[in-house]
């Protein structure tokens, strides 16, 4: 059942460029890129309860790093360029994460919001290298002898990178470090009482989150082909937050679903720019009211209702504490 679903999904994802018009291939690439960002943001917000409204800033750093590498070091293979984009962004994440340890809730949201603005200003002011408001044209990257010049080629690149990053995120609980990170999400007190250094792991979440977003940024540059500071405004950061809330906090499949929903909506609402915030706001409020765990948990509940009474598929009650044995 599960295997069949995965196989069907793989066929759909891999066969897509041959079945739909070019524009949808581009849109699908964008969804995949945004999925990576949403997973990255979820590592931070969903797992360690640190809300960020500055992920457009991280995306911009990754995008400009990737673009500048493609322009100035064309011999560098794409995977290496993406890796560097991720690492540079992760370093910035570390620098931002440490001071942010002292902040919580609203104050953290404001600090990350400010970070997003600072990045945009920095891009404008470093115009000798970023070309500021004129924007930066990104040439086709090369993978060995192949130039990734078509939407289809770029789509497969993003899918391959995303598959790796999704696999890593899904298997994070298999490693000691990953388990400690997730333990912080489950119970900060118990994690600390188990000897998990809270501050270190909250900072690590910032770094990992920035790495994912940086790699996504590198892909974004290649997929879109043109960068300008206004692509990374605060509304993009809000979109990322919307993705993980609609999709499901702390859920990897939820991140992908949320990215798909929000990206598609954004695209279909392109003609109604003025109403966009209104529609998005309504969607956010509605999903928080009626679907607090996002699409991921709503789907899980549906599938459990379908297989009612079947042991082992039921999700645990929120936090059973006082359950008595018969």
């Amino acid at each position, binding site marked *: 059942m599960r295997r069949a679903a995965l196989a069907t999904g793989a066929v759909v994802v891999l066969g897509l460029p041959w079945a739909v018009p070019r524009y949808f291939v581009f849109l699908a690439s964008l969804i995949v890129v945004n999925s990576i960002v949403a997973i990255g943001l979820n590592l931070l917000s969903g797992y360690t309860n640190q809300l960020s409204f500055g992920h457009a800033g991280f995306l911009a750093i990754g995008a400009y790093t990737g673009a500048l590498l493609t322009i100035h070091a064309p011999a560098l293979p794409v995977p290496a360029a993406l890796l560097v984009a991720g690492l540079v962004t992760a370093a910035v994440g570390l620098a931002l994460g440490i001071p942010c340890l002292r902040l919580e809730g609203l104050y953290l949201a404001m600090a990350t919001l400010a970070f997003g603005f600072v990045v945009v200003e920095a891009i404008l002011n470093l115009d000798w290298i970023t070309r500021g408001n004129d924007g930066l044209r990104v040439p086709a990257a090369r993978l060995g002898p192949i130039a990734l010049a078509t939407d289809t080629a770029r789509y497969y690149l993003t899918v391959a990178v995303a598959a790796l990053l999704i696999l890593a995120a899904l298997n994070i609980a298999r490693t*000691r470090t990953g388990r400690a990170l997730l333990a912080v999400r489950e119970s900060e007190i118990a994690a600390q009482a188990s000897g998990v250094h809270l501050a270190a792991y909250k900072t690590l979440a910032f770094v990992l989150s920035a790495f994912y977003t940086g790699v996504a940024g590198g892909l974004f540059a290649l997929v879109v082909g043109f960068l300008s500071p206004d692509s990374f405004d605060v509304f993009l950061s809000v979109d990322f937050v919307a993705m993980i809330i609609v999709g499901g906090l702390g859920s990897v499949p939820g991140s992908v679903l949320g990215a798909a929903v929000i990206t598609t909506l954004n695209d279909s609402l392109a003609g109604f720019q003025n109403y966009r915030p209104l529609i998005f706001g309504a969607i956010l409020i509605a999903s928080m009211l009626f679907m607090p765990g996002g699409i991921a948990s709503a789907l899980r509940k549906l599938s459990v209702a379908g297989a009612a009474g079947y042991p082992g598929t039921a999700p*645990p009650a929120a936090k059973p*504490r006082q*359950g008595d044995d018969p």
Partner: protein
Amino acid sequence: MTPVLDVQDLTVYYGKRRALEGVSLTVGRGEIVTLLGANGAGKSTTLRAVSGLVRPERGRIVYEGRDITQAPADAIVAAGVGHVPEGREIFPEFTVLENLLVGGHTVRRSQVGERVDAAFELFPVLGRRQSQLAGTLSGGEQQMLAIGRALMPRPRLLLLDEPSLGLAPLLSREIFRVIQRINDSGVAVLLVEQNARRALALAARGYVLETGRLVVAGPSAALAADPRVRTAYLGLDRARGGAAG
């Protein structure tokens, strides 16, 4: 012989509210000591201060001759203090095995396997359910998991916060037997319990906290005979036992 735990003049504030005022207590090597008191008297706060989860305003906490008053929580765990927090705080979306593995966060990698085996030996039910999600365990099993998790680093002092809370009488008796067995293996225990009667039966000595201050201290037998303890805690205990059982 120096005690395992020596707390002197501990004072803790939550913001402006004082939770503990000048509390001093000791736990001897291999001893079970209980901390009694009503809700909000500061019992959990005392345990949290010892394990580094809250920072005291004043006072000194010495564990095995080492001052740990300002030590970070992870260093205190690594030094040998285990803490089973109030409400168990298991990781509900983790499997039983993963819960234990997080408990072994400070344990050397090569030793984690044998520690897990030891936990399954102490709690066979956990072994049978090792790949089940912890949130689906019963209350008693969750408590065993919380204790097993805290034992992973082989602590020499175990802080237990209300281990029988919300458990049926039969299960809480089981938990108390387990505490006795852990103690028999040489682990000192500082036990916070609502069930004063049972706690005093298990412990060698006890302390009574009232609104953040110690009001009575002494051997368990003397406490059980103390009229103040009898009316306030053993009487209360009888009423609670009737309602819960």
